[in-house]
């Protein structure tokens, strides 16, 4: 009887590139005292050019004008940035006055109110919007849309129809992939927090590297070609981050999670290429786009050329399948200022608005770019993922020009023990679930 079989599983190979991430890097940017008007201008200009080109196919008989050019009773199309006036939106002055508190001041919940109203703004002026075609519950500040309607006697713009930019053009997916290849997505490891179970993550690493299971299991693991960790890999004890100098025993508490993650990452990097993205709780900058975690945090993993520290948002190609994803801040912010039946609705909306984070810089921290808005989605991804969500969910959406996108909400690994595997051949995904509970019956 053979105990060990002769078969050696070779991991499948794939092409990888992340050239699109250049747009999210800010090393070359120089701050010259600019304010956010520049990024809003770039966003409005680029989106307006696009919407002007779509307007004739939408409603060809109507003239297009600026907000200042509106005349009472004249039906026309206007294009501008939406601003949602919200009664309950927290004021920045409150946060400033209690800056030194240890826990975040504003509890994340929804700031919506029935009295919220929308205003359309362009460089010439702003106009209040009326009518039920545009629901304030769905839209947020920062979305650029085209509106068909007319100015009322009250000086408001009565909206009859809305045109969103829609899904961007997509490069065709290669259809000749013969074999199943998987990309594993996970997020919310929260190493260092009390709720994180190190055994669960170790099981995942062992599965990915092929140290778990029988031959069939190893065969499945050999089909994994790439791993992405989408943010919140750390959770530092909050009481240590209060601006005081740390005692030396506290210092080791602070970098224990980092050492632990480095050990695990080096195990993964030895076998498969892995990308790590920063998240809200990670030691990276606060404002989007978050810059890659410093390589000196990972002395064990960074020598591997399979290890990549990436920006948040992160965009990459594997075998010409375009992936785009964030660590969740964009969707969480939408969840505070608008409503939807499921998180995937938010994700789909950002794609149809062609903007990853429309609430930046209004309520989401953002770098004040002057000449571009890096969050505009110019090419439609094939897989669009969002990390650190409460539960796993996925949806396949279709665009008007035949685009096909798989939307994925990645749950927090520390709470659910679930990672997501996406099949490059057909964009289907399934979960990898690790449980360490032993049922006592």
């Amino acid at each position, binding site marked *: 009887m053979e105990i060990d079989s002769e078969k050696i599983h070779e991991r499948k190979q794939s092409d990888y590139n992340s050239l699109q991430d250049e747009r999210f890097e800010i090393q070359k940017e120089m701050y*010259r*005292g*600019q*304010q956010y*008007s*520049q990024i809003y*201008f*770039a966003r409005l*200009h*680029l989106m307006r*050019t696009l919407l002007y080109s779509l307007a004739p196919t939408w409603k060809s008989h109507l003239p297009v004008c600026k907000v200042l050019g509106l005349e009472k009773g004249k039906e026309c199309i206007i294009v501008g940035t939406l601003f949602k006036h919200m009664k309950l939106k927290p004021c920045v002055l409150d946060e400033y006055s209690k800056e030194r508190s240890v826990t975040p001041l504003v509890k994340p919940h929804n700031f919506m109110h029935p009295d919220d109203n929308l205003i359309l703004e362009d*460089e*010439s002026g702003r106009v209040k919007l009326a009518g039920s075609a545009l629901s304030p519950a769905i839209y947020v500040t920062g979305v650029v849309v085209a509106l068909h309607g007319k100015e009322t006697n009250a000086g408001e713009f009565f909206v009859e129809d809305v045109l969103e930019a829609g899904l961007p053009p997509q490069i065709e997916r290669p259809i000749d992939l013969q074999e199943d290849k998987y990309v594993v997505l996970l997020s919310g490891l929260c190493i260092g927090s009390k709720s994180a179970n190190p055994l669960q993550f170790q099981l995942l690493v062992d599965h990915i590297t092929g140290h778990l299971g029988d031959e069939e299991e190893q065969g499945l693991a050999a089909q994994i070609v790439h791993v992405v960790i989408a943010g919140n890999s750390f959770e530092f004890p909050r009481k240590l981050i209060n601006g005081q100098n740390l005692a030396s025993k506290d210092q080791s508490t602070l970098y224990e999670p980092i050492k632990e993650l480095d050990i695990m990452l080096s195990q993964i990097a030895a076998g498969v290429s892995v990308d790590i993205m920063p998240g809200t709780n990670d030691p990276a900058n606060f404002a989007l786009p978050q810059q890659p975690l410093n390589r000196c945090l990972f002395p064990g993993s960074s020598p591997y050329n399979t290890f990549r520290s990436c920006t948040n948002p992160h965009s990459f190609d594997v075998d010409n399948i375009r992936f785009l994803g964030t660590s969740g801040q964009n969707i969480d912010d939408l969840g505070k200022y608008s409503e939807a039946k499921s998180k995937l609705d938010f994700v789909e909306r950002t794609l149809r608005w062609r903007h990853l984070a429309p609430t930046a810089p209004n309520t989401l921290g953002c770098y*004040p770019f*002057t*000449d571009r808005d890096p969050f505009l989605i110019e090419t439609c991804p094939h897989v669009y993922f969002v990390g650190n969500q409460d539960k796993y969910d996925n949806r396949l959406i279709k665009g008007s020009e035949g685009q096909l996108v798989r939307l994925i909400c990645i749950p927090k690994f520390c709470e659910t023990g679930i990672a997501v595997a996406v099949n490059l051949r057909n964009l289907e995904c399934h979960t990898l679930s690790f449980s360490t509970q032993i049922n006592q019956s």
Partner: protein
Amino acid sequence: MATTAKNLKGFYKQTKSNITGGISKSKPSSRKVAPKHAAAQGSDVTQPAALISHGSVDLNEDYDKEEEMLRQFDMNITYGPCLGMTRLDRWQRAVRLGMNPPNEIEKLLKTGKVQQDCLWQGRV
């Protein structure tokens, strides 16, 4: 420092030149009285407060039609906000966004003899 005080008073009374950019070409309407003690050249020439750049009173005659042309470029709303960018950066952004800004502006900025920062830089 009576001279400085008078300059500042004149500064605050002034109306700003051409905010709407490109539509009206009128010169600033109110005059600032050139103080007697200042070493002003051509003291009967209208000196709008906009000359006070970077905290010092700019009293020489280099405020000429080239600077005027650059200021019109700054105030032109189609090219977006001007604060926080150098004029050349803003011109290059306008080119990248396909707005076809006039080439003379670029030539002027590249000569290096004109102010690289926009009209309001350092003052707002």
